[in-house]
């Protein structure tokens, strides 16, 4: 068997497209990472939230003529509010329980509810946002690629950057990090668990909003497309190391690269199988993620 080594420009094209697509998994994973950090909950409805945001972006575009990228200015603040309300309304009571299964079931229930509500409102068919620039391309590193994908990548980068900045340089952000590391010790500092959980949810869902913009402008979508997104985000989270926000974005990009290479070198049918295989392998052999060094115990 001979392995066809493709010419460098194809390889570059492949890598670029993989990385750009993977950044969207990454931004979804950053949201998962934050929520998991403080609540120890895998928020499976994240993907459904992304698709909901995509429909919202579509409604703003076709209903009010608001440009999808400009609608970030609406979607992100709305996401913050929705996240806060989702926590206060749905998770606050369950968060007080030691047992996280209740919270997990609420997340699953919320996912199905959103999926079915979207089906009722917008129908089950595939939807898309087609703008004047949807088909246009730009050149990066001498390689032609899609404009919307590149914008999606920038959104993911900016979103993650802002979250990292918030976590590192504000006192409330530090409180979120402290709570992620040791909730009991954090409460002894006077930090309210409900407050940090609500902040994690608010930021997580606003990131879902940003990802929704990226999805809406790049792919056709339907009400049930979100679940796969949640799963891919989970893979990205595991690759990047649970609790590592920048790692989650990197994990998404790595997953995107893996998918692009598998698709080219093996076949499209294998992409998901291999992605989940990598997921299991990471959890088995490097559960702390690809980037974290084992912590030195003093």
């Amino acid at each position, binding site marked *: 068997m001979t392995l066809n080594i493709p010419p460098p420009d194809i390889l570059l094209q492949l890598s670029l497209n993989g990385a750009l697509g993977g950044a969207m998994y990454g931004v979804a994973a950053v949201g998962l990472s934050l929520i998991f950090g403080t609540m120890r909950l895998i928020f499976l409805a994240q993907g459904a939230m992304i698709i909901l945001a995509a429909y919202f972006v579509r409604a703003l575009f076709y209903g009010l003529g608001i440009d999808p990228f400009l609608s970030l200015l609406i979607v992100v603040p709305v996401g913050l509010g929705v996240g806060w309300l989702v926590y206060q309304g749905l998770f606050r009571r369950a968060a007080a329980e030691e047992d996280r299964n209740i919270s997990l079931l609420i997340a699953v229930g919320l996912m199905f509810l959103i999926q079915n509500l979207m089906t009722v409102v917008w129908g089950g068919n595939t939807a898309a946002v087609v703008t004047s620039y949807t088909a246009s391309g730009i050149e990066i590193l001498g390689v032609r690629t899609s404009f919307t994908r590149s914008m999606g990548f920038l959104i993911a980068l900016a979103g993650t950057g802002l979250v990292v900045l918030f976590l590192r340089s504000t*006192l409330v952000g530090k*409180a979120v990090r402290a709570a992620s590391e040791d909730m*009991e010790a954090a409460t*002894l*500092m*006077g930090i309210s*668990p409900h407050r940090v959980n609500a902040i994690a949810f608010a930021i997580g869902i606003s990131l879902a909003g940003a990802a929704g913009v990226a999805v809406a402008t790049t792919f056709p979508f339907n009400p049930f497309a979100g679940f796969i997104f949640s799963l891919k985000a989970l893979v990205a989270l595991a690759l990047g190391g649970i609790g590592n926000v920048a790692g989650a974005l990197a994990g998404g990009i790595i997953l995107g690269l893996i998918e692009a290479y598998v698709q080219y070198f093996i076949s499209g049918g294998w992409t998901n199988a291999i992605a989940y295989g990598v997921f299991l392998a990471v959890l088995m052999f490097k559960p702390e993620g690809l980037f974290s060094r084992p912590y030195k115990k*003093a």
Partner: protein
Amino acid sequence: MANRLLEVNNLEVAYGDVGALWGVSIHVDPGTIVAIVGANGAGKTTLLKTISGLLKPKRGEVFLNGVPLAGKAPEAIAGMGIAHVPEGRGLFRQMTVLENLELGAFQPKVRKHFRQSLEKAYTLFPRLKERAGQKAGSLSGGEQQMLAIARATMSDPSLLILDEPSLGLSPIVVQQMFSLIETLHRQGVTILLVEQNIHQALKVADYAFVLKTGELAMQGTGADLIADPEIQKAYMGVLEVQ
């Protein structure tokens, strides 16, 4: 007495098999060091966790300056002036020394005095100033304990609770730890101290309570208890063998 800082009445806490409490009453007067001593599983940590709100009592009451703490969340109790350094220190190991100290002053009313509190903490613990940018988890055991105590003092607490501060430290560092506790005491900090190092604890304590399998076995001034033959036989003999 009217001016008790902390008053615990008839506390009953169910907490697994070990560490339950059966009708324990203690009190702490302002400006004193009070020690709670006893063997493993006597309920010392359970008592501290109940005072700071991490555990809910089945029966009994806790008052801080006469205000009942019943039903209050730990973050609210922290805001009322109790700083609890838990067993195992509860440091944020992935965060820097400075970040840990900042979080010690998280509560809004102490946040505005952050600069002064930090200055004070650095004067008391110069080592921490040198290591400000280092991750807490990379410090030595003794430095970590210093950081945990320094962080607790950042909120200028009316009551500082220390759970086994000497645990896992070398004898020299234990000495430093106890002299530090005395320094804090001289600065007017009220301290409630749980220790297995009973001799040391009784030496620094103004008053002490002895817990035995979840009940109060004895109480008295530190000096009285050190001289008590029963205490010597039951606790210190064992410790000297260790």
